[in-house]
């Protein structure tokens, strides 16, 4: 970022919002159609019954809940980067946190669809909310699912607010150049920002408070999601290691997806000067750490299974590694804890190709992690006579693709409507402009 001026930063970022080419419309419509198709499959499933999906007795949760946990996990890196790293004063976050935050909000929204999709009777979903009613019936606050509802909705609210608040100065900058209806749109979103001293002071404090508020949520939301499993008695689920294990896994997958999305983004928008290889290297280092934590958790689960002397627990872990789902299990182990070790090599963690390949592999691995935990534990629990294997059908695959369509559609809309790199914060890390032969800094 050396040698950049404030004006260049402004222009580079605002230029990303220029009217797109036809190709962009094609991509957005493709994802929108994919989303619509996924929704149609969901509708078909509502009409015919959940039996058209592959879930069965005893594997009552399958790809839907896997996707749910996966997307909640994805949603982690955004707040991690924007809030926790903000508090830690990590400068490398400045240019990437905006898109990571957007990813968070969209991923939570995507994740939020799955609990609805997987319900047998989605039309009475409001019973899970504590809505006062004449029957005096409340939801069961002992149920991890209710904790989930609360955790996810809190997280969505806070991260969306944080996202919008953090964007105010940038939107004001965009507003200055926008015309027509876009002007109105940005005017509303900029909340009357004029860049006065007082406003900056308030903004700075608010941002800090939001960061402080969002930080515990990063830990809590995925801990609560992990309790969906840990609070049950199912062997392979009932484990105290789950909360930290899930949080580390979530950051692992979230950062990987940030890398996967940012590499093409910086290329397309030609913002290589703002999002530099240094940013990626820092993320790769965090991934290396989370990869080690996840690998440790995998190993420790086996130790506990053996150490507890619980035959059900031991059987399920043996079966995971050697049974019908061994392929999924080893995909998970290799992609999540072996492959990221390559980031120990500076050459690999600074190579765009290396980063892209590994980040994609990590996301494949993290999806399989959830799949393995959910499916194998249910498929082989206590009574052998009730065992049964699960495989998704086209319905689950269709809805999953639809949710990717939803996420990517939102992300593509985001990069053309909102500044995907924080103008204000990038400027903070630039050297203070100096007067130099007629070059006026803005």
């Amino acid at each position: 970022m050396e040698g950049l001026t404030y004006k260049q930063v402004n222009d580079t970022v605002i230029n990303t919002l220029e009217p797109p080419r036809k190709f962009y419309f094609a991509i957005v419509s493709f994802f929108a159609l994919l989303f619509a198709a996924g929704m149609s499959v969901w509708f078909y499933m509502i009409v015919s019954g959940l039996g058209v999906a592959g879930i069965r007795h005893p594997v009552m949760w399958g790809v839907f809940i896997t996707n749910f946990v996966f997307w909640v996990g994805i949603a982690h890196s955004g707040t991690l980067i924007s809030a926790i790293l903000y508090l830690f004063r990590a400068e490398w976050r400045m240019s990437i946190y905006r898109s990571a935050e957007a990813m968070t909000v969209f991923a939570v929204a995507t994740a939020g669809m799955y609990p609805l999709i997987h319900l047998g009777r989605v039309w009475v979903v409001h019973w899970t909310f504590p809505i006062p009613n004449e029957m005096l019936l409340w939801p069961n606050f002992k149920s991890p699912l209710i904790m989930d509802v609360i955790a996810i909705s809190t997280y969505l609210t806070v991260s969306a607010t944080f996202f919008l608040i953090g964007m105010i100065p940038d939107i004001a900058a965009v507003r200055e150049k926008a015309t027509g209806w876009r002007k109105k749109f940005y005017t509303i979103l900029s909340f009357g920002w004029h860049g006065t001293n007082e406003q900056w002071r308030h903004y700075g404090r608010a941002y800090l408070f939001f960061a402080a508020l969002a930080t515990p949520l990063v830990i809590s939301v995925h801990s609560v999601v992990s309790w969906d499993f840990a609070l049950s008695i199912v062997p392979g689920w009932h484990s105290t290691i789950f909360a930290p294990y899930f949080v580390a896994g979530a950051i692992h997958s979230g950062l990987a997806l940030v890398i996967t999305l940012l590499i093409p983004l910086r290329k397309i928008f030609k913002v290589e000067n703002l999002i530099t290889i240094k940013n990626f290297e820092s993320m790769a280092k965090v991934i290396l750490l989370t990869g080690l934590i996840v690998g440790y958790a995998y190993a420790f689960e086996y130790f506990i299974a053996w150490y507890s002397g619980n035959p059900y627990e031991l059987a399920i872990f043996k079966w995971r590694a050697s049974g019908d789902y061994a392929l999924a299990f080893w995909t998970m182990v290799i992609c999540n804890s072996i492959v990221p070790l390559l980031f120990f090599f500076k050459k690999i963690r600074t190579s765009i190709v290396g980063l892209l390949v590994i980040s994609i592999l990590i996301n494949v691995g993290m999806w399989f992690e959830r799949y393995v935990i959910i499916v194998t534990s249910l498929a082989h629990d206590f009574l052998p006579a009730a065992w049964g294997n699960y495989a998704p059908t086209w319905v689950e695959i269709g809805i999953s693709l639809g949710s990717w369509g939803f996420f990517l559609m939102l992300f593509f809309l985001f990069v053309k409507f909102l500044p995907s790199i924080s103008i204000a914060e990038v400027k903070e890390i630039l050297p203070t402009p100096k007067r130099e032969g007629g070059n006026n800094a803005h």
Partner: protein
Amino acid sequence: MDRKTFLQILGLTGAGIVSGCKTDTQRLIIPYVIPPQEIVPGIANWYASSCRECPAGCGLLVRCREGRAVKVEGNPDHPINQGKLCARGQATLQELYNPDRLITAQMRNVNGSFVSVETEIAIKQIANHIKNLIDQKAANKIAVLSSLNSGALANCADEFISSLGGEKPVIYEAVNYSAIKGACNKVFGKNIVPKMSLQDADAILSIGADFLETYISPVEFARQFAENSDIKLGRKSIFFYAGSQLSITGNVADKWIQIPAGGEKLFALTLLNEICKLSPNSIAQNFSEGFSAESVADKIFISPNEIKQTAELLVKAKRPIVMGGLMCDEETQIAIMLINSIIGAIGKTVFLNIPLSYSNISTDEELDAFINKCFEGKIDTLFILGTNPIFTMPKSYRFAEALEKIRMVVAFTPMLNETTEYANYVIPINTPLEDWDEYQPDASIRNYQQPVMESVFGVSSTGDYLLEIFKSVTGKSLKNSATYYDYIRTNSKSSESEWKQILGKGFAANNVSDSETIKIISSNLSKPKVQAMNFDAIHLISNPSYKYYDGRGANKPWLSEIPDASASIVWENYVALNSKFAELNGIKNHDIVELTTDAGSIEIPAKVSTDIEYHSAAIAFGFGHTKYGRYGTGVGYTPLPLLNKNIWSAVTIQIKNTGRWTKLISPSDTDLQYQRGISQAVLLSEIGKHKKHYEDLNMYPKVQHETYRWGMTVDLDKCIGCGACIAACYAENNIPIVGKELVSKGREMQWLRIERYREDEFAEYGNRYIPMMCQHCENAPCEPVCPVYAAYHSKDGLNVQVYNRCIGTRYCSNNCPYKVRRFNWFGYEHPHPTHLQLNPDVTVRDKGVMEKCTFCVQRIVKARDQAKDEGRLVRDGEIKPACVQTCPTNALVFGNLLDEESSVSKLRNNPRAYRPIEEYNTRSAITYLQKVIKDDYVPKKKNKV
């Protein structure tokens, strides 16, 4: 606008909105203007009747709600079944409400296809035809082929045909005991099938007789058998099973003597010979000469000691019995009857003074004579009453060709089957629950059936049609009976008050002569002919399926969806092969094999196990219908093309692997318990010794129950795995059937399943069963995880599922260690008229909700409310969930756990009591009692190879 106008307009608008809301679902409904006297909406009527699913003749009580039968139960007063019923009996409702039943008569037109005609017109045409025959002085060309009816319908058919001038009806049943009848005739001079009883029997030998499944009177035998082995009473009756296949019956035996299929005769003769050595009898000695254990045992791959041990057991016993199965021919049965006579079973366990209805079945010779007459053109008109011989008679009878020789075949049947394909007229009749009838299972009892509801399809009974034909032919009423009811009424020879009493009870006792001294008559016994059978070849036997009997049950989907007890297969059958044999011949489970005999060949999937002797193969009979309604057609494979004239006898087969493969569908993937102690067994001498104790730890205060905590005990020593409980549960709780396809996807809806595990601790063969239903845990894992309190704990200890509150997260099922919850993956259909069977006391669940066993909460609530009205507590045994009510062996007991005197509480403290997965502190309300294995009869341990 003033206030008044405003209000006027407001009122007008309001009225407009109200009238505009009229939906088009409004129909003209008509209330009961004059309600029938007996029917009180919401209150069930019970009618006594008789089960006709097999000739055993169990008594029924039929529960009717608002004029339709919703459940059948055993009649507790009936001496045969004493309130119990098997799965086939429970499923008799599906015969009644079968959607494929005929509504009108079918007449074959010139093209050879059926057209519907008014039944009245068809009857007239048949009557005209008979009139013509009589005019031509050819009345003797009229014949009747009937299923086994003893009592009024048999008499009616008899008189009908003899009054017209024809010959005595031929009675055909595929499952017949002609060999026993012949044997009794030759040995004792009594041409009957005698009543047998296991009451207090202390030594039982079954030579291929599956008396817990289909043999003679299975429900009665099952009850008596279970009573005999009541450990608490110190009874230790010994049961040996000699046969080629470990059936449900063989599975509960103390010892399985593995003889090859077809080896029964050698075994019986040798046993007789050995018994003579212990208890000399000259006639028997003569008959069995040359069959010493040493010389014969080798041929049938057993050790001489096994025979000697059996002989000793029988001779020493006080009330022994030997039963010979369907595959035993007459000479084998002679040997068995001689044994019974020598060991003193006659008069104690075998009653020659009480002939069973089976005695009326025509012998094979009579059947052959009849078929010959058809070929000779001596039969012009044949009435087929209720039987389906085309499905059960092998080709060698040439019965199909014989039918084609007959000018007019009239079949009386509720629905089309294989035999109606050869009929000119098919007359639809009522099923046994819809009409009057009388049936005598044995000489000591007459069962009466009454129409418990109006005919579902508005048809009439065989008896009524016969009387009608008779009247239009002769102009007179048969025996002055205008209707079949009158006929039965006259036949019953009872006064008006007696008649009412009989109908109320459902049966009447007959006097039987006291047992006279029965002597063996020597003159009729010729030396047995034993063909030199090569037992090294594979022999196939076919057994009547315990679900479908001779095939008549195949149209009842409840039965099809109950996993078969031997291999847990649904909606299909298979050929059972020995695993060692299969391994040597490269046959694996699910491989389609080609079986060939002299008679023909079939292709059928194989299921290999150690539950069949090495040289034997077995196929359950009753599957493979080509025409039997939507539920019966195309289910499984029939072994008929392979079989001899006596379809139950062993035939030599060649087995060839076709290399093709099909998936036999089973709801469970494995039959191993992995040492998890789910279905436990214990040695008799070690009862109560190796008990594990789990500390009752909990962070929360104990659940307080007020007056009741409902609980159940399941005695695994009594459970035989017959599946009657499952069928009863289907009927009581409106459980949908899902079909083979969905079972393969884990979508079966049974609230109660019988888990089948291999006897891995004690033996290399055999199954161990454990009925698994909601355990109603006090500390239920399903309850806290439900986000909306759809699963909660009631104050009387029930784990309640509120269907209307359920949103379908399915977490409860995930967290249930017993995996007994069922999810409604679809909205399941109940096609017309099967919906009439739905129990109005139980909700029909919609798609997307979880359901499970409720302990039949509707019955609990009813009894509890009644007790409350009467100011008392519910009495022990007053509430019987459907499964408990029907269990033929009384393995299930239900009651109040808070009452220390209740039988369930006492059983819960039994030293054999345990609860699966107890260490998870679920504190379930169901306690299982370990199966007991007698120390002397510990089967060989598995040889680890």
